[in-house]
């Protein structure tokens, strides 16, 4: 009988120690950014930009969300999930942790001593994956918590609509008073519900899980971490370019179905919650407009691909020769 456990608590403790600095840095950055981002939303009156944005309607297809959603607080707060800082921190965590598991340890020469202990290679991989995946989930929750903190801490100044009179036939509103418009202070939490972003947070997790699996797979077959990181980043950029080209040119629309970015739809989930309720993004039956599949299928595709990468990584790592330390 082959002995061994699936995860090892001593290894988990080691991996937590190894990754804690990166986790704290990314977590603090994501939480603080999400909070500040919500606060910035309260500073800008998007109504002032409505005329300008209307000029760019032709480019709306490049935006991850309809322009109309940008005029709502819910939509603007939801944009946090597409902000480069949030994406960057997620990518850094996933690539750094995923690439570390085999090629990182091989490069440092520490894998030889660790695998000489009575553990299986699968145990090592799964222990590492446990820390990385839980860390990823906590980072995603940091973004959500940052949004929550921002929503609960932010107040807004809103203009009260002036009484007006509409001239029939020509349909022009004429204010009934010439006084400066009155404003009222409201709490952002009266306009935005934090639960709205649960599915967006799940999408961010699925996006990260896919990258984590990809980096782990490439790490399991390599012996140089720099090469693993380079390959993951090259694939990421290629997928991003495919996504952009697919959006830009109708003739290249087929590229969209080959890019994993097409499955990352946090803002679409936000607008679905606004229009159809909190349960809408978790549906496995109803297909939202402009989508080919039910809403939950998209993050599940990313998670499924990530899991496949992990399974492939386990098979490759358990069968390969362990190169001698360099």
């Amino acid at each position: 009988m082959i002995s061994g456990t699936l995860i090892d608590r001593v290894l988990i403790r080691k991996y937590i120690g190894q990754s804690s600095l990166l986790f704290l840095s990314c977590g603090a950055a994501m939480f603080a950014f999400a909070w500040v981002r919500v606060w910035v939303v309260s500073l800008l009156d998007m109504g002032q930009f409505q005329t300008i944005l209307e000029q760019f309607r032709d480019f709306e297809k490049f935006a991850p969300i309809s322009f109309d959603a940008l005029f709502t607080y819910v939509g603007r707060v939801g944009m946090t999930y597409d902000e480069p800082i949030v994406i960057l921190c997620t990518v850094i965590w996933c690539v750094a942790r995923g690439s570390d598991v085999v090629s990182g340890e091989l490069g440092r020469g520490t894998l030889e001593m660790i695998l000489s202990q009575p553990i299986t290679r699968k145990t090592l991989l799964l222990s590492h994956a446990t820390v990385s995946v839980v860390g990823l989930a906590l980072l995603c929750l940091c973004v959500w918590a940052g949004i929550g903190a921002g929503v609960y801490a932010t107040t807004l100044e809103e203009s009260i609509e002036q009484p007006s009179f509409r001239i029939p036939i020509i349909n022009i509103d004429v204010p009934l008073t010439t006084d400066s418009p009155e404003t009222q202070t409201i709490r952002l939490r009266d306009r935005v519900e934090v639960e709205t972003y649960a599915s967006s947070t799940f999408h961010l997790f699925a996006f990260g899980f896919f990258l984590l699996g990809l980096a782990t797979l490439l790490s399991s077959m390599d012996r140089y971490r720099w090469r693993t990181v380079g390959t993951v980043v090259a694939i990421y950029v290629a997928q991003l370019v495919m996504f952009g080209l697919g959006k830009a040119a109708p003739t290249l629309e087929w590229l969209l179905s080959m890019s994993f970015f097409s499955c990352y739809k946090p803002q679409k989930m936000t607008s679905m919650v606004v229009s159809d309720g909190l349960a809408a993004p978790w549906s496995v039956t109803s297909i939202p407009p402009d989508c080919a599949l039910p809403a939950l299928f998209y993050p599940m595709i990313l998670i499924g691909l990530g899991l496949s990468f992990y399974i492939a990584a386990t098979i490759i790592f358990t069968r390969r020769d362990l190169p001698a330390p360099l």
Partner: protein
Amino acid sequence: MTPDIVVTEGLTKRYGDFTALSDCSMSVVRGEVFGLLGPNGAGKTTLIRLLLGHLQPTSGQLSIDGIDPRVDGVELRKRVAYLPGDARLPRHMKGGAVLRFFADMHPSGNLDRSLEVAEILELNTRTRVAFMSTGMRQKLALAVVFGVDTPLLILDEPTANLDPTVRGNVLNLVMDAKRVGRTVMFSSHVLSEIEDTCDRVAFLRKGKLAHRLAMKDLYQRHRITALVDQAHANMEAPETIASRIHTTIDGQSVAIVTDGDLAPMLSWVDSLALSQVRIEPLGLRAVYDAVHTGQAVAL
């Protein structure tokens, strides 16, 4: 329980066209200190790494304590403490944390024992690994390995990077392990260490097991060098000892290699009218050189 703790039969490892280890059949008896000798690239580390399951053999059989690493590597490694040739440890940890980590990882790990060994080796365990010298890291790895109470110890060049005093301490630890019944497999380039500690030695050359030697046989081998006073002197040995004597004459110089008890041969040597006679133990060096150059080895 079989008398042999390590057994390999026809063990072969190939990387494409390159054969790192070819048809290696050997065994290590329980409780002995077994030396692995050979030049760089001879296949010593490949053999050790195959035994631990780090490499998949191309063909052949292998087992430690009856367990094949391909079948149950975990059970196998529960019985082995291994020091790699170039032991690297997590750089972010302090020495003490490294000892604790490995003591916790292995079911036979013992932190107190590891700390004790670290003290014997004069190692400061409060230093972070990243700031340790090569020798300090080697001491730390030795403390990890000697802290684990397993039936088999595999040490790949354990005294590399160590000063002479600590080398002596390491050899004492090896002999202590032997005294309590543990088996030690020991690879080294320092022949005197092998001579001092090992019961048996295997010589590897170009991936092949070139020679095996029991050290007790080596201790009975002597080389007598001298000058012969008269040219073409009769060097023929009496029948009773002829089979254990190998003589080489070069001009006036003569070299006699003897095998077995020296006492019955001394009267014959005395009858040869030799001058400037020198008798020395043959030593591992002579065997190593013969194996290394591909010459036939009498033993």
